[in-house]
C-alpha cells in the first residue's frame, strides 16, 4: 500500500524539474500548421487581385458570408468591384478556396481575429488583399 504512494510522490517530484510546456501566448506565438485555415487572403498578380468575380465562392459558401459584386475595368475585363467576407458568419471551412477556378483566394495562418466592433469583422477587399 505504501510503495505506490511513494511512487506517486516520485513522479510529481520528477515533474517539478521538467520544463513547463506552457506557451507564454501573447509574447510567444504557437507554430500553426501550414495548411491551417485562418483569415482569407485575396491573391495578387500583376499588381491587381486575381479574382475574376465568377461568384463560385459565394455560391459554395455554406455560411453565406461572402459578398461579391462584379465590375468592368478599363480593358473590359471582369473583376470584383466589391469583395467582402463577414468573419462573424464564416466557419473557416475553406470551400471557397477549393471552389476558386483561378486560385485567387487562399487562407493564411492568422488566427487572431478579435475586434471591438461588429462592423470591424466585415473584411473588405482592401483588408483581404494579400500582403507581400
Amino acid at each position, binding site marked *: 500500500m505504501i510503495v505506490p*504512494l511513494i511512487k*506517486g*510522490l516520485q*513522479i*510529481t*517530484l520528477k*515533474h*517539478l524539474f*521538467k*520544463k*513547463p*510546456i*506552457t506557451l*507564454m501566448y501573447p509574447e510567444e506565438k504557437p507554430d500553426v500548421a501550414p495548411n491551417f485555415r485562418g483569415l482569407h487572403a485575396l491573391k495578387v498578380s500583376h499588381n491587381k487581385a486575381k479574382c475574376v468575380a465568377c461568384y463560385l465562392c459565394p455560391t459554395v459558401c455554406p455560411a453565406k458570408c461572402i459578398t461579391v459584386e462584379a465590375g468592368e475595368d478599363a480593358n473590359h475585363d471582369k473583376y470584383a468591384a466589391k469583395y467582402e467576407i463577414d468573419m462573424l458568419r464564416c466557419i473557416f471551412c475553406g470551400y471557397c478556396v477549393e471552389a476558386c477556378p483561378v486560385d485567387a483566394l487562399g487562407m493564411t495562418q492568422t488566427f487572431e481575429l478579435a475586434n471591438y466592433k461588429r462592423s470591424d469583422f466585415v473584411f473588405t477587399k482592401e483588408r483581404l488583399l494579400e500582403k507581400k
Partner: protein
Amino acid sequence: MEIMGLPLIYYGAMILKVLLAFVFVLLTVAYATYAERKIIGHMQVRVGPNRVGPMGLLQPIADGIKLFFKEEIIPSEASKFAFLLAPLVALIPAFISFAVIPFGDVIEIAGYKIPLQIAAFADNAGTVFDLNIGVLYILAMASLGVYGIVLAGWSSNSKYSLLGGLRSSAQMISYELAAGLAIVCVFMVSQSLSLHAIVADQAGLFGWYLFRNPFTFLAGIIFFICSLAEINRTPFDLPEAETELVSGFCTEYSSMKYAMFFMAEYANMVTVCAVTTTLFLGGWQGPLPSVLNFIAKVYFLMFVCMWIRATYPRYRYDQLMKLGWKVFLPSTLFLIVGNAIWITLFK
C-alpha cells in the same frame, strides 16, 4: 523599572516577539498561496502565476486586493451572528498556537536573556520558563479550529455548507485521537510537556525524536498525516470537496470573510508544520543560526504538504473514517507500547 517583579525589557521583548511571529506567519501565509500555486503548477508541467510583478511575486497582494473589494454577501436565511463569527473562530486558533512554539534559542540583549518563544522568559542564568503544558495547549487550540468550520457550515443555512461542516467535525475528531496518541510517544521520550524542554532534548541529528527509535519515527509520520487531516488539507479536504460540495463550509462566504477562511487554512498549515518541526524535527536545533533552522524545517514541511496535494486525489468519506479509526488509531496504540518497551530495554 519593574512591573510585577520583572524588568520592563521583558515586556518589550514579549511584544516584539508577538509582532515578529505574527508578521512572519502572515507573510508566510500570503506567500504560501503563491508558492503552492507555483509548485503545483510546475509539478503539472505548467508555470503557475507569473503575470503580476516579476515572476508573479505580487500575486498574493493582487489576490488580497481583489478579495477585499468584492461584494460582501450574507444569505438572507443565514444566522447572521454566527455567520459573521465563524471566520474569526476559524482564524484566531490558527494563529494563537504560535504562542508556545519555540522558534529560536535564548538570545542575549543588554545583559538580559530572551528566549525566542512568545509565552516564555528566562532568568539571568539562562534557564527558560515556558508554559509547562505547551503541547496540551496546542492540542486544545487545534481542536478549537473545528468550531469555526462547523459554525460556518451550520449558520450558512445551505445543505452543502452543512455537509461540509458535518464532515469536518467528524474528520477532526477522528484524527485528533490518533495525532494525540502519536504525541504520547514524544512525551514518553521527553518526559516533559514543555515545548522548550522538548526542543532542548533534541540536539544533533540523531537527537531528533523522529530518529530516536523506529517507533517515534512512525509516530512522527502518523502525526504529520493526522495533522494534514485535522487542518483539512488534501488528500483529506473533504469539508471543502469542490467536486461534490461546491466549496463545502465556505460555499456561502464571499469577500474578506472567505479570505479569512483561506488564511486560516494556510495559517493552520504553518502551525501544523511548526508543531511537527518542534516535536519531531528538533525545532530550532541544527547547523544554521537557530531561527533559520526552524524556518528552513517549517518551509520544508510546507513544501511536503504542497507536494502531497499535487500528488494524491481526495479520500472517499468512508475510506477516511476507516483510515482514521482502523489504521491510525490501533497503530499509534501499538507504537506507544513498542516505544515503552524500547525505552525500557535501551535506557
